[in-house]
């Protein structure tokens, strides 16, 4: 089982989109997937279209008991292989430290729960507060998402530092999977420049697979289905990219 935290310290770079793309790639292979939505914006929760739910990851973190997360997990609308630990606005209350075990509560509550899954994806909010720290403390690896733009690349740099800090202070198992370039428009010279810049600085940490900007991604999200179920030429490119990314994560 691979447990991957998807993060960036800049908002709007497509973290939830990447989580959903990876979940969709795993769905297409009939793998069992759990998406843990740590972002109070709850975009991943909404896109996964679960039935009405009673509890969220905020309630789980507030409780903190070993294995209690199982009681909040619900099936998604994507099918029986994809489950979600949902989020809501009030999860933001858990974004500040609450006691000495505050950063490791998620890991404790997931004890014995994640064994049933082939892939667990943690959608972190765009900040380095307690929700993200919980994600990094629970995960085996961290995937940093960025766009090929100036501010986004700065966010990626800070996210890499955060992963290193989390590894030394919270979770020695944690490894960076790499930096994923999302929403790439290869015809833009600025994008090409920033991608080269990032590769110059971070070398092999920049993943070879890049996610192109295609409207099919937003169309599938709006329809509440995996992009892998969307039939268009643009979707095919994105599907291939997420399939390659899933291979990298499951390696």
């Amino acid at each position, binding site marked *: 089982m691979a447990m991957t935290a998807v993060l960036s310290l800049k908002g709007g770079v497509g973290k939830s989109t990447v989580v959903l793309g990876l979940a969709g790639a795993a769905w297409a292979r009939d793998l069992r997937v759990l998406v843990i939505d740590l972002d109070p914006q709850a975009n991943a929760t909404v896109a996964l279209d679960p039935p009405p739910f009673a509890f969220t990851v905020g309630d789980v973190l507030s*409780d903190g008991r070993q294995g209690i997360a199982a009681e909040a997990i619900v099936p998604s609308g994507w099918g029986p292989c994809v489950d979600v630990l949902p989020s809501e606005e009030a999860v*933001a209350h858990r974004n500040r430290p609450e006691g000495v075990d505050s950063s490791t509560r998620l890991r404790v509550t997931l004890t014995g729960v994640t064994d049933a899954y082939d892939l667990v994806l943690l959608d972190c909010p765009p900040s380095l507060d307690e929700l993200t720290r919980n994600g990094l403390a629970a995960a085996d690896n961290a995937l940093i998402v960025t766009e090929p733009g100036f501010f986004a690349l700065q966010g990626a740099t800070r996210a890499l530092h955060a992963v290193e800090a989390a590894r030394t202070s919270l979770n020695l198992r944690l490894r960076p999977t790499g930096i994923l370039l999302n929403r790439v428009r290869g015809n833009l010279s600025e994008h090409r420049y920033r991608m080269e810049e990032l590769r110059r600085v971070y070398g092999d940490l920049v993943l070879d697979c890049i996610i192109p900007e295609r409207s099919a991604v937003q169309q599938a999200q709006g329809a509440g289905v995996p992009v892998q179920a969307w039939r268009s030429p643009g979707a095919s490119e994105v599907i291939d990219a997420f399939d390659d990314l899933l291979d990298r994560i499951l390696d």
Partner: protein
Amino acid sequence: MESTTPRPALGKAPDAGLHPVSGRPLGSGSPSHGGKSLKAGKGATAADAITGPAKDKYVDLGVRVPKSVRKRLRAQAKATGVTPDDLVSRLLASALGTGR
């Protein structure tokens, strides 16, 4: 010897019902836009769906009705303190299921 008392089930966080910014009560798990569709109509934006429906424009509708119906309409409008036009709009909206 292990306790046979079942462990308490997961409950809502004490502050789960409060908005993280205002501290005021949230709707029960509903999104801040009150569950309204964010799909924008022609000329509208997503903000319109959040702040409320766009104001309806009024247009002329020429219809022929029996004189006795017009008489009762005017009487009913006077009794309820609205104009005949408003009363017809409400009755039609109600009959057509728009909820206005």
